[in-house]
């Protein structure tokens, strides 16, 4: 069966990404069924915003460096205005 790429399964990684973007990049957390289709596009957009802020390669994809930054201890104030 597929072996997880790191200790975290990809599902957990996605959850990490989503939680991070909700906490610090104003990603909405309550999606109604109609909006859910737009969600993945918004996640990519917010992820790019975070990657740009941290001077990472702006891919919109949660690569290893991006995940590494997300797992670092940090301040709870969002990086973008509420």
């Amino acid at each position, binding site marked *: 069966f597929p072996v997880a790429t790191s200790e975290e399964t990809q599902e957990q990684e996605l959850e990490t990404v989503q939680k991070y973007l909700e906490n610090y990049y104003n990603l909405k957390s309550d999606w109604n069924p109609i909006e859910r289709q737009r969600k993945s596009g918004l996640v990519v957009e917010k992820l790019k915003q975070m990657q740009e802020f941290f001077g990472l390669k702006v891919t919109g994809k949660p690569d290893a460096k991006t995940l590494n930054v997300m797992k670092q201890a940090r*301040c709870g104030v969002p*990086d973008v205005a509420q």
Partner: protein
Amino acid sequence: FVLTEGNPRWERTHLTYRIENYTPDLPRADVNYAIEKAFQLWSNVSPLTFTQVFEGQADIMISFVRGDHRDNSPFDGPGGNLAHAFQPGPGIGGDVHFDEDEWWTNNFRNYNLYRVAAHELGHSLGLSHSADIGALMYPNYIFTGDVQLSQDDIDGIHTIYGPSKNPIQPIGPKTPQVCDSKLTFDAITTIRGEVMFFKDKFYMRINSFYPEAELNFITVFWPNLPGGLQAAYEVADRDEVRFFKGHKYWAVQGQEVLPGYPKDIYRSFGFPATVKNIDAAVFEEHTGKTYFFVANKYWRYDEYKRSMDAGYPKMIAADFPGIGNKVDAVFQKDGFFYFFHGTRQYKFDPKTKRILTLQKANSWFNC
């Protein structure tokens, strides 16, 4: 730096703060001292003054809480979110909350209270997060051993409250920008197939897999290494990199500083006492010799015999014609030496003793 949206600021410059409760992780005196120092960082560079009060409502209320503490921003247990603060304003405005599920320290161990408080107070005064990794207002926790406002932080607080009344305006360190045409380097070395450039407290790193240069604090890799390194070189076949500052040097393998270091350059390499520091150094793999550059002279050291070759020092100009009389940094790649002096970089062929190219010092960063 980034100002908080709407530019909130305190209309008074004399502000009060109160520590409502104390973490059991540290003695009360240490908490008081850490918070006092954090306020001093900001008062030293601005017209603001801060006075601690011990009862009633203060402008900035400071507390240690955990989990959901009824401000719509619950903490998340150990790690992750360490603390938060509110922008200037009445009531909860300006207040700072530390996550009591963290372990608060007054040293290198996670998490240093002084370092986190210094950051959160920036929010209390009206600053948001800065993308400058050298700024205290950078969102991620980084503790390099000293806590100092960067120029970016100072510029931010000056934009809100104006300069300090101090006739000598305090300045802070600037984070190097890899595409700054005036960028110069303290030291450069190869390390396990990569090239690392050192400037002040920072390293810049390039590797072929990631086009963006990585810039971070030297202490991220080597917590005990000082900033302001002066020379560095790799002895590749021993997987060892040596860093030099003053008359001391450290040897590392990967991220491990080898035991017994720092050592001094006089006993280990036989430099005369007149040599106060090394400007640059490079190991030549196929000869096993290391070249040390000091002012306008250079020494040659045999890494296998572990002794300095006879007949040195010699004049740089005699054997490295064209690179000038001073070297800031040098490294070897594919048999060529790359000498750096100021903003100039010379690609030099040691076999023919000729300069092949002259480039900008930051040519490696794809600017």
